[in-house]
């Protein structure tokens, strides 16, 4: 009878964007009577969009103030029975693991919304209408739907609901990349690339992953032991993640019947892990990310890099580590190796990039590698460091993509070598890009460094000896990261001004509204990360303690 509803704030946070979307749809339906034609309709959609995202941010602040970092219990629970026959409950809650992600979603969602509104500043779209002017109501509805999906994914504590929101996230993203992304083009070597290609690739790739998750969900459901619904009715099986975690930690899944001759918890672990690692993205499954980023419009890249990647990492924490601790111990070194590969491999690939967005995409792959390394190390420092990397990357990569957006909106090209000497023409832009690049390469005093150094130091202390070697290898990536970022700054900003770009103009207020808050956050979290650590340390510490206590008995 535990986990009774305590507050409906989370439900509001999850479904406010949906309400906004519905409002826009209704307005679309009755635009005749409401005399909302063309430009007025677009502006109405934008106002509703910004309003709902501001509401979510305000609620996020309320959540932060109300959240008690000390306790490891789940807070702000909103729990009632939804589909009684299958013991599916509507269960929203937030604890140390997901609080940072929820706040990040609110923040980055707000920034993404601001970036999709073309007010406050000139747009040079004479030959190809800027994405934020094309079919705006549709864009806003899908954007808000996406926000609901992501927020729901982080808050859902019922496996079925989690899976529902997980799928809800995919659809709007597909359309957003497909329609508002870059038009289809055939590249030099004849390969057809463009918005639709990237959208399909993203959608199918993640969907393939979520199929495995579905199987794992069903497997877990049917092997889960007796539990009780929120109104006390006893049930044979349960989708409740917290009960599943408790059962997992008591070793229920470790002892379950093997599947296809292999240990149950190993098979389920691998299934879930692949589903989430596609999203992280992990080394072999990462090729969708650069394509998706290159062809997505800027705010969508912001959302994609800012929060969508975190759903994968969060999933690993919430599912793989809490519910299947034995398998987590068994797979720890493997994950770490993949994490290290992610870091070093992506760093080297970045060196060879000519497209700015692709470079940033691969750098995201490299940063998310830190999370994997941090998770697998199973020490409180590494775990907190890894979650902090997720938050820091969630702030820095939106900045990077907005920066790429600023230059793309003006010059309509992302080819790094095409630029030169922009610093003399765009000083303010050069400054903010410098700050973003420095944060991303992990300069101490900025957010990137805190996470990275914690993961390094934490991973070093892991029980498994192999981690020391992995960390040393990953440190090499730190050098390569510095090299390719500086080389990018060199090719783009320094050196003589390329006359082709003499006509560029410096940042306008829209870009400032989106970039400066993130810059302030980066510096703030660089020097004073404690508020974040206070939120998550107790829970992550408890998680690490329980997972390592269970030990490797598989």
């Amino acid at each position: 009878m535990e986990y009774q509803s305590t507050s409906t704030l989370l439900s509001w946070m999850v479904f406010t964007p949906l309400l906004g979307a519905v409002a826009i749809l209704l307005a679309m339906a009755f635009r005749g009577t409401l005399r909302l034609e063309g430009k007025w309709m677009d502006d109405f959609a934008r106002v509703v969009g910004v309003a709902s995202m501001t509401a979510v941010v305000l609620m996020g602040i309320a959540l932060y103030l109300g959240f008690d970092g000390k306790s490891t219990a789940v807070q702000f629970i909103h729990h009632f029975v939804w589909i009684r026959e299958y013991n599916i409950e509507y269960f929203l809650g937030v604890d140390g693991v997901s609080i940072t992600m929820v706040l990040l979603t609110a923040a980055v969602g707000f920034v993404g919304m601001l970036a999709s509104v073309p007010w406050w500043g000139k747009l040079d779209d004479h030959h190809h209408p800027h994405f934020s002017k094309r079919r705006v109501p549709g864009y806003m509805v899908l954007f808000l739907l996406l926000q609901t999906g992501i927020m729901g994914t982080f808050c859902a504590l019922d496996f079925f609901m989690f899976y529902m929101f997980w799928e809800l996230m995919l659809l709007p993203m597909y359309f957003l990349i497909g329609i508002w992304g870059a038009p289809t083009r055939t590249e030099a070597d004849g390969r057809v690339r463009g918005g639709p290609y990237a959208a399909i690739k993203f959608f199918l790739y993640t969907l393939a992953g979520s199929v495995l998750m579905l199987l794992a969900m069903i497997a877990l459901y049917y092997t889960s032991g007796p539990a009780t619904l929120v109104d006390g009715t006893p049930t044979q099986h349960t989708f409740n993640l917290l009960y599943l975690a408790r059962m997992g930690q008591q070793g229920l899944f470790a002892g379950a019947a093997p599947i296809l001759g292999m240990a149950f918890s190993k098979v389920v672990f691998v299934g879930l892990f692949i589903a989430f690692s596609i999203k992280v993205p992990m080394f072999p499954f990462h090729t969708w990310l650069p394509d998706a980023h290159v062809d997505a419009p800027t705010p969508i890249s912001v959302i994609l890099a800012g929060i969508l990647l975190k759903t994968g990492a969060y999933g690993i924490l919430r599912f793989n580590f809490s519910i299947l601790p034995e398998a987590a111990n068994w797979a720890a070194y493997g994950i770490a190796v993949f994490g290290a590969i992610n870091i070093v491999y992506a760093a080297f690939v970045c060196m060879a990039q000519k497209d700015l967005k692709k470079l940033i995409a691969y750098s995201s792959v490299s940063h998310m590698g830190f999370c994997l390394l941090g998770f697998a190390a199973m020490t409180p420092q590494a775990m907190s460091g890894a979650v902090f990397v997720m938050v820091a990357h969630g702030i820095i990569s939106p900045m990077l993509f907005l920066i790429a957006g600023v230059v793309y909106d003006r010059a309509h090209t992302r080819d790094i070598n095409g630029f030169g000497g922009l610093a003399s023409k765009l000083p303010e832009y050069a400054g903010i890009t410098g700050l973003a690049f420095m944060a991303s390469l992990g300069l101490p005093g900025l957010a990137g460094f805190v996470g990275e150094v914690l993961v390094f130091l934490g991973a070093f202390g892991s029980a498994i000896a192999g981690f020391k070697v992995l960390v040393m290898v990953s440190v090499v990536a730190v050098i390569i990261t510095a090299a390719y970022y500086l080389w990018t700054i060199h090719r783009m900003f320094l050196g003589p001004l390329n006359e082709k770009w003499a006509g560029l103009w410096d940042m306008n207020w829209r870009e400032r509204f989106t970039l400066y808050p993130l810059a302030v956050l980066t510096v703030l979290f660089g020097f004073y990360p404690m508020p974040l650590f206070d939120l998550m340390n107790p829970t992550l510490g408890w998680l690490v303690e329980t997972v390592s206590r269970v030990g490797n008995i598989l």
Partner: protein
Amino acid sequence: MELHPFPYLFLIPLFPLLGAVVNGLFGARLQRRMGKNAVHALAIAMPWASFAVAATAFATLAGLSGESAVHQSLWPWFSIGQFNADMAFSMDRLSGVMTLIVTFVGSLIHVYSTGYMHDEQSYWRFFAYLNLFMFAMLVLVLGDSFLTMFVGWEGVGLCSYLLISFWYKDSKNAAAGMKAFVVNRVGDAGFLIGLALLIWALFPENLTGLSFREVQEVVTNPAVRDRLLSSEVFGVGLVSLICVLFFVGATGKSAQIPLYVWLPDAMAGPTPVSALIHAATMVTAGVYMVARLNFLFALSPAAMTVVATVGALTAIFAATIGLFQYDIKKVLAYSTVSQLGFMFMAVGVGAYWVGIFHLMTHAFFKACLFLGAGSVIMGCHHEQDMRHMGGLSKLMPVTAITYLLACFAIAGFPFFSGFFSKDEILWKVFDTGNLLLPGGGKLLWLLGALAAVCTSFYMFRSYYLTFSGAYRGHGYPHESPRSVTFVLSILGILSVVGGYVGLPILWGLPNWFEHWLEPVFEPSAPFILSAGGTHATEWTLMLASVGIALAGFLAARWLYKGAANPVPARLLSSPNPALRFVHRLVFNKYYVDEAYQAAFVRKSLDLSRVLYRFDQGVIDFIVNACGTVSRFFSAIQGWIDYRLVDGMVNGVATLMVTGGRVLKVTQTGRIQSYVYGIMGGAIALVVAAWWLY
């Protein structure tokens, strides 16, 4: 180590930060509206203010006991379980000295820059970066914990990148800046791994925090020390591995043998930058770090040997390259690398206070040399090649005199600051017992002596080339403005007087400097052994070093005094090919840069291209292949579905039609044919019935 709260300590780094932020954000408008004076007024005031606060802190420190430190903790920066580091500043005697040097020399250079950068358009940006650098350096020096120091450590690297590529319009400067930052990052990577190793070695020994104090308490505790000394990682002694890794960080920052390549290129930055960063402050960070971790380094003779030998090798290596450079700033750059080699030799053999002492004196005379060179360059309208200078002593008297004083100091002429510090180093190196190789000290001393000869030779060569003989350049050189000459004179005096702070005990005079730093290095004292050199040997060595200085001076004087119009490139045109080869080899810096470029830079670029092609070719190919394969299968299914299933359905239909068409013939309309049919059927039935039964 008692801590005395000193509420104003954070002001020292805060002032330059304020200056940097104000100039950085509003500098352009400030400069446009209120002119350059406002910009440099603010920019100069800040370092002097922090110098003042540093002085007061230093004074309070003097009043306290030896081990005490003035401390201020601002806010908890990291605290996760056992691992906590606060954003805290503490100034003990060592960082007190360093802060004073940094703020004093820094402020002087700020004043100098107003003159040097006078006609620079983005004047405000220069001062913003300079202030930012001061902030980073002060955070490094005052940092209480490893991580706070690391903030300063990389912050300094960033500022040197910004300042080296200040004139970014010329991509060569930008490339130099990038090289500096990346090479520093390599060093920092080493530092990080060393730090990780140290932390995880001490965690089981209930390390409470990451500050130097706590680490020092844990390491100096004898039980812990024995366990540390006995444990090994990857087959190498844990402590020595940690120290070597820290030393790698130091080589990156202080441009020692493997990672020194960035310093000569860093001369692409404006001269005050070279003076401040690449002579006085940043490059000394490595020495400060090793001194700060004296309790660790003293434990492992292996690490000390590594430090000392690398120092010695760098000293002699850089000195030889300096012999034949024609760019005045390059000469000074290699001389800096060489002098740093000396400092590391000192610190390597355990004579930490001597290293810091040489650091201080070096800060004075090297800054004076660089600024002198700067004023010469300014005078000769940005001409840096000594072959186009000459005869400037008459045209730029103050610069000439101060430059000469600084040359005497660096060469180690008696009663100049360089003499006291360098001679002490050579003596301590000669007399050390800490090295693995028992006679090692003697060998290192020899290398050091050789380097000293080269030092005095190339310094006086540069003096005579620029200041004596006829003016070979174009235009009319003129003396620099008063702000430049004022700073030069102060530094000139200091480079003479600076040495009297640490007079050798040999002369029975009180050595204030050693006494002042002695408590800081007290934990490592018991491990420093001396080879029992007597006073006699000390005297002979002192005379020897005077002789060395004179030898270099006379040789340079003979070769280059009164340099006629064509520089006497005797070595260049000398018939002996071997000599010519040596000259070309040394002149081209032993082709180290090209080797690094080929070995590391090009290789990593190739690797990244290969990996990217792999990424696109193999992985993306597989993903797309899945796409095409499934499309292929769906095509097959489509074909099957269309041909067979549909085929069958259509087949039945056509069957009916053709059947109908065939049967149609029977409907002739003529009745008789029907009757035939009936009759045929009847007969067939009868026959069948009859046949069957």
